[in-house]
């Protein structure tokens, strides 16, 4: 029996000409588990917001347990049935104490206090946050905050919980916990709607709906979707295990993990699979681009709330390399990037940025920062000019460029970032899609003609195609020296929560509690040196490799497998 149904639902934002949703008809049953995927701007969030009346759908287009959210009464009824968990963890916390926040929805429903206490406690137990009940949500990790949001949702005893990209801003462990909660909900008979860009996550659902430019273009099983040849056109990708199985010439199985696929591969493949050497560019043997010597840094030094963010880190980043910085939320990645860029200065120790000691007395920090600019997390939120061209010109103007040189520089940067200058210079940034905004933010640091790029989670919250494009752009930038400007060496340091992305870098640095606990080529960090206590998600290729080598003990295969990661993961792009 359908609990949510839409009947040719269309929605156009006020002031917009293009509809965000057009003619979407969908039925979601009680206890269903459906994933909604699609490119940035395809209407996924709009769809979810129409279900509970955050956006007002046309009368009669939506029915939630018999209520029509286009009316005020129906809206309240719909919100009792559907709880929503949003993308950004801190933006959905209302109260200053964990248990009070869980109670917020119940207060609004007018639940009497004794009943409220029981329900809050049960919800906190369900998300494993009971011990934190009297703490301030500010001091929770992003993953814990998202579990708190889930607790607030389930305390209301909804029949449907919708997750709107709720796993996109948290680290692998936090993500696994939230996905586990979704399974618990489904097992308890509560329907789950999961809006996501991650195909591995989408493959967990029973059904997948694909939105493209506001239209429902696919509705069916994950197996049906991933067997389709329209994935590229829809800007989607395949789950990691699915692509890996295809690459190995095996029949793909939805939801199969690396261990299972590894065993199957070992059993079914007569000949040893062909592992190609991954194309790691050997870093040019010169002075390091960045060098930290026992550098430490803390926030609010000298006060009661002092917090050590970077703990005596010594690290040398070879010029010309691409370094991936990985670690759990709060492990110090962003702070480390700021030390490299001179936005933060070490409290003790030395930070050399392109050979310049950032803490020395008469250093020109502006010049240092412009040679190795940092793109902060979600850099598009810091876009401030009215026109794309001006945004890109901000940096070079600060370098003192003007006239034709300035225009040439801006043109080159925008072209390189995939936003052709002639077409995009006069576009307003807020009218661009999420992926294009991210490109614009990249263009506006590329226009500085820097020697290094420091990128804080450059691929986060993008659809699979945009993500792959941005990563290609970064690797192209880094590889530029070998092609065009001989003698010019370019370095990239980027943080990421995707270990598969990190595996494509030249070097990987693992951070834990402010310290760098491992640093080396991905084959070593993710291979022999892999440590579960880092709290990370091992790259799929390495999981698979480990599974296969435990299953097969053929000497020939082992020697081939040890050399490096299988290349198909890179060829297929990050899933």
């Amino acid at each position, binding site marked *: 029996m359908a609990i949510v149904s839409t009947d040719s639902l269309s929605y156009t934002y006020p002031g917009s000409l293009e509809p965000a949703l057009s003619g979407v008809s969908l039925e979601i049953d009680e206890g269903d588990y459906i994933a909604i995927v699609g490119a940035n701007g395809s209407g996924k969030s709009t769809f979810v*917001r129409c279900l509970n009346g*955050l956006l007002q759908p046309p009368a009669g287009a939506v029915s939630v347990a018999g209520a029509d959210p286009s009316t005020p009464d129906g809206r*309240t009824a719909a*919100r*009792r049935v559907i*709880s929503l968990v*949003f993308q*950004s963890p801190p*933006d*959905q*916390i*209302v109260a*200053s*104490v964990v*248990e*009070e926040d869980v*109670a*917020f*929805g*119940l*207060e*609004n*429903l*007018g*639940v*009497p*206090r004794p009943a*409220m206490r029981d329900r*809050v406690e049960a919800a906190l137990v369900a998300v494993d946050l009971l011990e934190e009940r009297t703490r301030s949500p*500010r001091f929770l990790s992003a993953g814990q905050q998202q579990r708190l949001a889930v607790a*607030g949702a389930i305390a209301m005893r909804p029949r449907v919980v919708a997750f709107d990209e709720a796993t996109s801003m948290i680290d692998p462990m936090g993500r696994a916990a939230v996905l586990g909660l979704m399974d618990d909900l489904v097992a308890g008979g509560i329907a789950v709607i999961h809006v996501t860009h991650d195909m591995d996550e989408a493959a967990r659902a029973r059904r997948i709906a694909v939105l493209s430019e506001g239209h429902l273009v696919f509705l069916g099983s994950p197996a049906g979707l991933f067997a389709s040849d329209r994935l590229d056109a829809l800007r989607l990708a395949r789950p990691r295990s699915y692509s890996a199985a295809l690459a190995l010439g095996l029949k793909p199985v939805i939801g199969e993990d690396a261990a299972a696929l590894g065993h199957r591969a070992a059993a079914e493949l007569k000949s040893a699979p062909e592992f190609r050497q991954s194309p790691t560019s050997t870093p040019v043997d010169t002075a390091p681009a960045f060098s930290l010597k026992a550098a430490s*840094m803390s*926030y*609010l030094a000298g006060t009661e709330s002092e917090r050590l963010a970077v703990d005596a880190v010594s690290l040398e980043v070879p010029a010309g390399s691409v370094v991936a910085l990985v670690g759990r939320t709060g492990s110090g990645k962003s702070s480390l990037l*700021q030390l490299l*860029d001179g*936005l*933060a200065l*070490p*409290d003790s120790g030395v930070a050399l940025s392109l050979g310049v000691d950032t*803490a020395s007395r008469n250093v*020109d*920090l*502006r010049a240092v920062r*412009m040679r190795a600019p*940092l*793109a*902060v*997390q979600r*850099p598009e*939120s*810091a876009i*401030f000019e009215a026109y794309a061209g001006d945004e890109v010109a*901000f*940096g070079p103007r*600060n*370098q003192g460029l003007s006239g034709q040189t300035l225009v040439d520089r801006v043109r080159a940067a925008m072209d390189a970032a995939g936003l052709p200058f002639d077409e995009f210079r006069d576009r307003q940034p807020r009218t661009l899609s999420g992926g294009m905004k991210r490109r614009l*933010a990249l263009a506006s*640091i590329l226009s500085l003609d820097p020697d290094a790029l*420091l990128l804080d989670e450059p691929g986060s919250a993008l659809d699979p195609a945009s993500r792959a494009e941005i990563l290609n752009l970064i690797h192209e930038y880094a590889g530029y020296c070998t092609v065009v400007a001989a003698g010019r060496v370019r370095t990239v340091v980027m943080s990421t929560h995707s270990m598969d992305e990190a595996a494509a870098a030249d070097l990987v640095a693992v951070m834990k509690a402010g310290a760098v606990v491992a640093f080396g080529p991905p084959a070593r960090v993710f291979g022999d040196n892999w440590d579960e206590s880092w709290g990370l998600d091992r790259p799929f290729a390495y999981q698979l490799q480990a599974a296969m080598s435990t299953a097969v003990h053929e000497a020939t295969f082992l020697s081939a497998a040890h050399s490096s990661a299988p290349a198909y993961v890179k060829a297929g792009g990050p899933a």
Partner: protein
Amino acid sequence: MKGLEFWKHVSIGRYVEADTPVHRLTPAAKYLWLLALMLSASMSGSALVICISAILPLFFARLARVRILFLLRGFLPVLPFMGLAAVFQVLFSWPADRSTVLLDLGPVSLSAREAVAVVLMALRFVAIMSTIGLFTSVTSEGDTARGVEDIFAPLARVGFPARGFALMIAVAFRFIPIIAGEFESVVKAQAARGADFGAGARGPLRKARAYLPLIVPVTIRALERAEALAEAMEARCYGAGPATRYVDTTGGSADMVVRVAAILYALGIFIVPVLLAS
């Protein structure tokens, strides 16, 4: 950390959890005493009342086991203004001031009346600053908001949006670190591209020019964040109907006595001097 640092990590207020008679008071009782003391310190003309309102918060602070020095530290930032006000008191004589001259330095003289005025002004400041300091030390963020709801509860019966008002205060608390964080990310994004932040820019004009372009993006982001929070609140049925309260702030009979005492005190400081004078 050196370089660019913001208040994103700073905790708001000085609340430290403790179990003392003062901490246990309901937020409404704390608010009533806050108002009563502020009123007596700022409005009363009586020297005795001003002295009492400077001493009372220090007495309460002892009960609450809050360090008195810690409270008076809040007094430091206003010291320069105090000094300036004192100088004006001394420089400009009161009209028809016939009190004894305590100190005579040619054109400038300090009369007894001026001396008393300076001391009383200082006491008023001490009273106000330590009262506010004590209130924020013993009242959590949540109680600060709930207290407003309780104080306005009688008005809620005639349609005053007491809960909305309290929630507004709670959300304002929430937004201080959020805005600071947005400010930080915009400043960092611009500093990384050569804007003049934390790179030794001197001169107020240059600084102002560097910060001016931040107003637009920070405001837009703050509005976006506010909208996201509003959506999250609405999705959790905010405004769906009559609401209940998770935290109980009714208080017992002892608390009621404290509340009544605050009201009596506020009335007393104005009535007693009048009675004494007549």
